[in-house]
């Protein structure tokens, strides 16, 4: 278990709970109770039931024949895009809403970038009849209008955040402020493996169903539960954490995370935190960050709003540092070409985020017998406007 969080909330040198005292009681309660709650039989049966009947799990592991032929190797797609609400995000919000219920919380808050986590949170709040407030950067509110309307239709209040660059980082700041101001009745559903301990571990556990299913599906389809490599895109890193989780100790399985290079890692317009970042503290965790020499956080850029974040989960910072996982970066341009390739080879339109993992196929050496599993974390429905504009259909 050398890649698991330690009792102080660290992955090697990364992680911890760098919280102001105003958040201490809530974080301490979570830290002391999350393992006992999510380990209980009652929780497990309710969680598994909802994953099956509501989310639609297990998600298929699909052998992508024509894409495999194109690359001269074997490529499997883990179809998280087929989940209810169109991405892996619901795995985590289902887990956290059940946890919030057990903690007796009445009000749910969340941050969102592209709106996928916001929709997944609004969805579980509707399911459970809990009040829901979603913070979203004002720029993202205007960029992602359909998701904003979805959240409102689901009964959530969407609060546009006007500070900073008006994107995901600023939405996260505002959600943290809300929690500080409402310490008694509110649970904060963080959407990724970021934030203070125990969030990175808790969210990774809820997402770990992805790699758990991969193992049994691979065994059935290939005769071995271990693939050659697993590829996933990384912003905060929740889908990658879920896809890597049960392979972390199988050191022969190559793990590849793909960050958003934006317009290029050598430009100012990038979100490739591990390539251009350095260690620091943001959103209550010590991790790799995009920052200037004075420790001010710099603004990331990516065509994909879901990867547009200047930090990364501490687990991934640790996997990068130890070399257990390899991290690449794909540019907007490369990603869009991969979107089109998958669409026309397999009839699957992927989300911009997920297409970063596909773009990595052009950057690595693969043998014909290699088994490559790509976590197709989300559907391209939300990105249709971008695609139509870019490809000119």
């Amino acid at each position, binding site marked *: 278990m050398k890649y698991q969080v330690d009792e*102080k909330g660290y992955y090697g040198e990364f992680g*911890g*709970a*760098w*919280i*102001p*005292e*105003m958040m*201490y*009681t809530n974080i301490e309660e979570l830290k002391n109770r999350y393992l006992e709650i999510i380990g209980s039989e009652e929780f497990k049966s309710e969680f598994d039931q909802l994953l099956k009947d509501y989310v639609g799990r297990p998600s298929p592991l699909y052998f992508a024949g024509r894409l495999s032929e194109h690359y001269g190797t074997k490529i499997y797609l883990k179809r998280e895009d087929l989940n209810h609400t169109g991405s892996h995000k619901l795995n985590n919000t289902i887990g956290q809403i059940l946890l919030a219920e057990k903690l007796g919380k009445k009000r749910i808050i969340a941050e969102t970038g592209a709106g996928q986590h916001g929709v997944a949170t609004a969805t579980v709040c509707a399911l459970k009849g809990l009040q829901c407030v979603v913070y979203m950067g004002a720029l993202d509110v205007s960029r992602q209008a359909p998701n904003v309307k979805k959240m409102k239709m689901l009964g959530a209040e969407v609060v546009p955040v006007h*500070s*900073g660059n008006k994107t995901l*980082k600023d939405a996260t*700041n505002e959600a*943290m*402020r809300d929690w*500080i*101001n*409402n*310490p*008694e009745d509110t649970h904060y559903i963080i959407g990724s493996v970021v934030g203070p301990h125990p969030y990175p571990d808790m969210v990774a556990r809820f997402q770990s169903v992805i790699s758990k299913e991969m193992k049994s599906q691979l065994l059935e389809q290939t005769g071995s539960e271990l693939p050659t490599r697993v590829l996933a895109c990384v912003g905060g890193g929740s889908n990658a954490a879920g896809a890597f989780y049960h392979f972390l100790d199988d050191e022969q399985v190559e793990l590849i995370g793909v960050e958003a290079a934006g317009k290029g890692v050598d430009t100012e317009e990038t979100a490739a935190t591990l390539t251009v970042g350095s260690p*620091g*503290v*943001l*959103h*209550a965790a010590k991790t790799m*960050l995009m*920052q200037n*020499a*004075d*420790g*001010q*956080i710099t603004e990331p850029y990516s065509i994909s709003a879901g990867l547009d974040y200047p930090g990364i989960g501490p687990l991934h910072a640790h996997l990068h540092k130890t070399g257990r996982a390899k991290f690449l970066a794909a540019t907007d341009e490369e990603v869009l070409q991969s979107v089109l390739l998958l669409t026309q080879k397999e009839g699957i339109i992927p989300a911009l985020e997920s297409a970063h993992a596909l773009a990595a196929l052009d950057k690595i050496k693969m043998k014909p017998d290699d088994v490559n599993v790509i976590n197709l974390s989300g559907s391209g429905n939300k990105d249709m406007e971008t695609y139509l504009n870019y490809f000119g259909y």
Partner: protein
Amino acid sequence: MNRINKLFETKKQNILSVYFTAGFPNLNDTVEIIQELEKNGVDLIEIGIPFSDPTADGPTIQKSSETALKNGMNLNLLFEQLKDIRKSVNIPLILMGYINPVYQYGIDRFCEKCAEIGIDGTILPDLPLDEFESHYKAFYDKNNLHNILLITPQTSEARIRQIDEISGGFIYMVSSASTTGAGKKVEDFHQDYFERIQNMQLKNPRLIGFGISDRATFGNACKYANGAIIGSAFVNAVSSSTDLKTGIKVFVENIIQPD
């Protein structure tokens, strides 16, 4: 002796501490603001190091921090502005900010620089107690600096005792669960919380902060602690006043001058 300790030894009541953001409203206002605050009778000053992502602050200090950063403020420049401050200012000075800029500067270098200039302590809300104790405290002790820790209405008695044990200067009592300048009136704050803390007989003096904005809220807070801290209300005052000197004088007089 550390100036914070000296202050609390000589003055037990109605201590007024004022926060401002360095680099706001103008980049080079820092020294003048400090001098004017002292001249008008403020007992202690918290100099804010602006940060891009101030998660414990409300809109006023978010905005002043954003402006200060745009103006070009950073920790190196702040230290440069403060290098001769002890030639003109005697009251205790505290640096307040977030951990990341300090972490990038290097904690050992940061503490040494504070000592060299004559800074008496820091308030870093996102440097939690256990991290401070295990990795930072030794540097503070070596440089005769205090790290001021916060307590809130939700902080358990056991943890308050632990914070009291490790604290050296004073304890920062957050008046209610909130970000700075949240605008809840101090009269509405948990009276029982103030009384509960008062009855704990802590070894450290206490200042109440968050939501203190005028003479009434200051006066009420002083009934339950050695004094109080004003931040957002002062930042608002300096941002709207055309003349810094007059603005500061009027603001402080309105808080502490007898009727």
